[in-house]
């Protein structure tokens, strides 16, 4: 679950990490009073979840409370990169000398946390990493004893820091690592980490992603509908299903991420276009009723393709849910299915006898038929 900048900064504040003075506002009036409180030039930052706000015009400067109110008024309620701006963060404008980069994330190859820090931060950091990887300093962290002070210092020395700056940056890293651990984050990123002209480090931005599967124990975070790009995605998430809207016309329901992706690949291979990604394997196979209901609710869908080859996802249980959905929702579009795996005999009985669904013997034939039907419609 991605946090908004202002939410991430609240975690930073609790962790003792320096952030700019400021607060979040939902109205232009609030923006005015926060700017007045700050009493100097401020930044008005649109709170959306996607990156690239600055280039898209979502960040404005204001030299007076009146101006802050005006800028906030312009931004609030607007759409920025498909998202509606519901809040703006009003912060003191920093006296920026340098823009650095600092993050904690998971190094999949090592299977442990990874510190990355660079004196070259800002929007171009990825390009810098590609062209001059030596400018990104990394430390692999042992999850059991965590980031050690010597590692934080070592990273600071590797950046060429000296004197007090070493321990200041090291201390900031140690605090940020604690945020990463405490909140089950998969990413804690500060970009830019600003060095002010007085030489202070300040986290000018905050990108925090809480790992979805840890939300059950991170109870202060609730992944509400505003965090999803599509209403169906949110609804699917309520049933533990991964749904992503795509721009084709073949509605897809599959078990397992691998088979789902392969089904999309095969649709493309045979010249069709998938309308969505939807995976309902694993622990959520019992929600096949809702899976079909969500796919059918998409008006772009001209044909539904169901591919399962379940292991834990028992074909009989899946088919029970599908049969019920077909009986109740009476779909107007054709359904093509290959249902295999644990319990496939019972599945065949349920679907063929109860709702008259003819099953295809394998994935490829089902895909080919779905593409044919979608093209014919």
């Amino acid at each position: 679950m991605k946090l908004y900048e202002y939410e991430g900064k609240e975690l930073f504040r609790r962790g003792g990490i320096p952030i700019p003075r400021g607060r979040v506002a939902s109205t232009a009036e609030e923006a005015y009073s926060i700017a007045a409180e700050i009493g100097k030039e401020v930044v008005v930052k649109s709170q959306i979840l996607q990156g690239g706000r600055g280039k898209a015009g979502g960040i404005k400067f204001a030299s007076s409370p009146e101006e802050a109110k005006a800028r906030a008024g312009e931004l609030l309620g607007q759409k920025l990169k498909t998202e509606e701006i519901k809040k703006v963060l009003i912060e003191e404008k920093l006296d920026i000398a340098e823009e650095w980069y600092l993050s904690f994330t998971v190094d999949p190859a090592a299977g442990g946390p990874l510190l990355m820090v660079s004196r070259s931060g800002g929007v171009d950091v990825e390009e810098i990493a590609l062209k001059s990887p030596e400018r990104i300093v990394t430390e692999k962290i042992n999850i059991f004893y965590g980031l050690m002070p010597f590692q934080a210092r070592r990273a600071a020395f590797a950046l060429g820091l000296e004197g007090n700056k070493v321990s200041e940056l090291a201390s900031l890293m140690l605090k940020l690592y604690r945020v990463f651990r405490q909140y089950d984050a998969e990413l804690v990123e500060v970009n830019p980490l600003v060095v002010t002209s007085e030489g202070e480090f300040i986290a000018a931005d905050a990108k925090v992603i809480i790992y979805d599967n840890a939300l059950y124990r991170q109870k202060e975070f609730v992944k509400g509908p505003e965090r999803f790009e599509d209403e169906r995605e949110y609804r699917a998430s309520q049933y533990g299903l991964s749904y992503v809207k795509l721009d084709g016309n073949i509605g897809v329901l599959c078990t397992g991420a691998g088979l789902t992706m392969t089904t999309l690949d095969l649709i493309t291979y045979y010249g069709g276009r998938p309308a969505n990604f939807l995976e309902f394997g694993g622990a959520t196979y019992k929600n096949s009723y809702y899976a079909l209901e969500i796919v059918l609710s998409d008006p772009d869908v001209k044909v539904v393709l169901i591919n399962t080859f379940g292991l834990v996802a028992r074909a009989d249980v899946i088919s029970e849910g599908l049969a019920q959905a077909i009986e109740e929702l009476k779909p107007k579009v054709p359904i093509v299915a290959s249902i295999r795996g644990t319990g496939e005999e019972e599945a065949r009985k349920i679907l063929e006898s109860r709702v008259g669904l003819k099953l295809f013997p394998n994935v490829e034939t089902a895909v080919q038929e779905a593409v044919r039907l979608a093209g014919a419609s």
Partner: protein
Amino acid sequence: MAILLTKDTKVLVQGITGNEGTFWTKHMLDAGTRIVAGVTPGKGGKQVHGVPVYNTVLEAVKKHGAEASVVFVPPAFAKDAVFEALDAGIKLVVLLADGVPLHDAMEIRALSRQLGATVLGPNTPGMASIGQAMLGFIPVWLTDVYRVGPVGVVARSGSLTNEVCSHIVAAGLGQSTFVGLGGDPVPGTRLTEVMRLFESDPATEALVIIGEVGGTMEEEAAEMIEKGEFTKPVVCFITGRSAPPGKKMGHAGAIITMGKGTVKGKEEALKKAGAMIATRPAEVGKLLKEALRC
């Protein structure tokens, strides 16, 4: 022979009294798995399909010498269950749970490496040495999908494995051992670690790698083949060419990946190393036959 698991491996089922645990214990027993004990805290003294149940793993290990464990507990208790197994000296743990917190997965991998044990998963369908034993959710009784043969199979995804394996059998071949690594960001065991085992398994003459978009496991495999550390024929099927782009992991994700992780990049690396690439599951059988010259 086989890797990691044979018909003689003494197996423990953690969470045996739950619905899934009970259901799959039956299937595992039917597949020949030597299940010697089950564990569910508070259910010690019961039996499930004739298997005695204990309160703690240590007790089950002491009384029955269990060597491997398959873990059917919910994600929130997965780390504790795996630590309990590793603490009791179990050297192979199959962690099926889907939804394990990332930080728990990191701790699981750290402890298993520290102790020199193998953890498959989280979010794995399990593993099977065909004709001998099965741990997890593999429908080895489907005779048009699983049959004893010379092909090792390793995959990140479960249901796709069934699809690919059905094409292996359709080609007149069969499998030695299938290993599911699990689909989570931090698996307990990585692809190359399993390849090392297949390399020295006399029952395995060729390997099928079922990979997917993202991560760098397939690239590591290519490197291993290129270095000559894996010498058997390899057929790969990599899925996810038309997958929607994943959630953007800030800049950090991109910096770590450094442009790696695409299906195309993985296929090129593997091809360059000498592996054969199937573009559809249906091609896997044909390529295997070529590779094994049969």
